[in-house]
């Protein structure tokens, strides 16, 4: 019974470690559902969710910047196709987009012979592609709004300095647009975290997938889903505070001056 404690003491060589692990084992002792095994599922789920959300946000952001510039173009033939893309991806449920990519990827000609197949066969990458395209559409519109809101005076000043279009975009418009877009982008990050829950529908073991597994195993919906809800709540608050911190740093010049 107490073997694990001895082993732990030997391994860590300190008493602090022993206290924590003993406390943890006591906590789990009378509990049939939250065993180290199921907690391991939740941990794996947390890792999958974080990977999915982080990678799709980064890829979506990279896609969204050029798309937002094109979307703000004066030329209709450049901006209209981008508008069409954002309209379709923002107007349909992410679940449908996920299904279309997940079930549809098999039907691309020659995909099963190509080197990409071992990657695309797993649910993770179709989900990643769907999430990326979805968040890129929303982020494009957020940035486009921020670009449009650039004050005329700043553009005139840049022109008066003889800046080219691309230089003006790089030095004047984009830096201030990013700052203006920050609060809306923070919401999009939280939205993406919550939307990622549907990855569990295509058999991925993300956080929600882990909760569904635990529910099915123990028939304990309250424990399984309330626990995962609490994890999502913590993640949401972490993102919220991170963006508040960023806003404080980057939008300091917009705050009313004290003293």
């Amino acid at each position, binding site marked *: 019974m107490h073997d694990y404690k001895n082993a732990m003491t030997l391994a860590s060589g300190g008493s602090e470690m022993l206290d924590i692990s003993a406390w943890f084992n006591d906590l789990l002792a009378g509990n049939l559902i939250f065993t180290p095994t199921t907690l391991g599922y939740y941990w794996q789920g947390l890792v999958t969710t974080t990977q999915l959300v982080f990678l799709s946000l980064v890829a979506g952001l990279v896609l969204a910047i050029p798309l937002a510039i094109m979307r703000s173009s004066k030329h209709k033939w450049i901006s209209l196709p981008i508008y069409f893309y954002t309209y379709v991806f923002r107007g349909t449920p992410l*679940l449908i987009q996920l*299904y279309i990519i997940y079930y549809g990827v098999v039907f691309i000609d020659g995909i099963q012979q190509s080197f990409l197949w071992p990657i695309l066969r797993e649910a993770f990458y179709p989900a990643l592609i769907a999430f990326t395209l979805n968040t890129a559409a929303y982020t494009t519109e957020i940035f486009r709004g921020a670009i449009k809101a650039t004050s005329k005076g700043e553009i005139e000043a840049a022109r008066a300095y003889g800046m080219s279009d691309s230089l003006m975009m790089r030095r004047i418009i984009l830096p201030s647009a990013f700052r203006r877009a920050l609060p809306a982008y923070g919401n999009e990050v939280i939205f993406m975290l919550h939307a990622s829950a549907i990855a569990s529908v295509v058999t991925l073991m993300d956080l929600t997938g882990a909760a569904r597994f635990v529910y099915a195993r123990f028939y304990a919906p309250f424990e399984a889903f309330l626990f995962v809800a609490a994890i999502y*709540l913590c993640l*949401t608050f972490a993102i919220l505070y991170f963006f508040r911190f960023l806003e404080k740093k980057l939008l300091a010049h917009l705050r009313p001056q004290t003293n």
Partner: protein
Amino acid sequence: MLDLQGYGPRLIEGAGVTLQLAVLSLILAIVLGLLTATAKMSRSWLLHRTATVYTTVIRSVPDLVLMMLLFFGGQIGVNAISDMLYDHYGIDIYFNFNAFAAGVLTIGFIFGAYMGETFRGAFMAVDYGQIEAGKAYGMSNALVFRRIRFPQMMRHALPGLSNNWMVLLKTTALVSVIGLTDMVRVAAEASRATHEPFVFLIPVALVYLLIASVSEWMFARLQKRYDIGFGGQ
């Protein structure tokens, strides 16, 4: 005409389920949202606190998780109640917690939180002098609400309301996961059975786009109506 390998009628039925679900949850969400906004603006500490916890918690947890909690947990909860009724009072009834009710309740409950925030901002945008003027005319609180606060609040609330409706509409797709036969579920089933996903999923996506476009147009008309008297601002 719309046979779609025999799945056509079921898809149309599914579209009906989606629409009913969306409209019913919208109504529930608006009612809950008005209550929440009132609670948030009330002077009672308890009401204010409860409403804040409700909007904060609901908006921090994924829709799908809440939906599963209510759907899978709901049946157990309902069974516990009917067991209790039987044990203590000898009343023998069995409630069947169906997926449609669970869907409407969850989506309404989730969007009630979002609506609450929208309505609170809109109510605060109504000039307090107008409410005082209404009271000076001897209007009761209910009459002030109906004639002054509500119509003017709607003008400010409509953009947020329309936004919430669009998100709500897309959220209804999630009920297919908890076993409700909406159009997404029919399309996903058909895709798996026939190995032709595009034939079913793309029309369903188009239906969503159509509903979104029509409602956008309707909201623009409503906005025009509520903007009367504000010089087309």
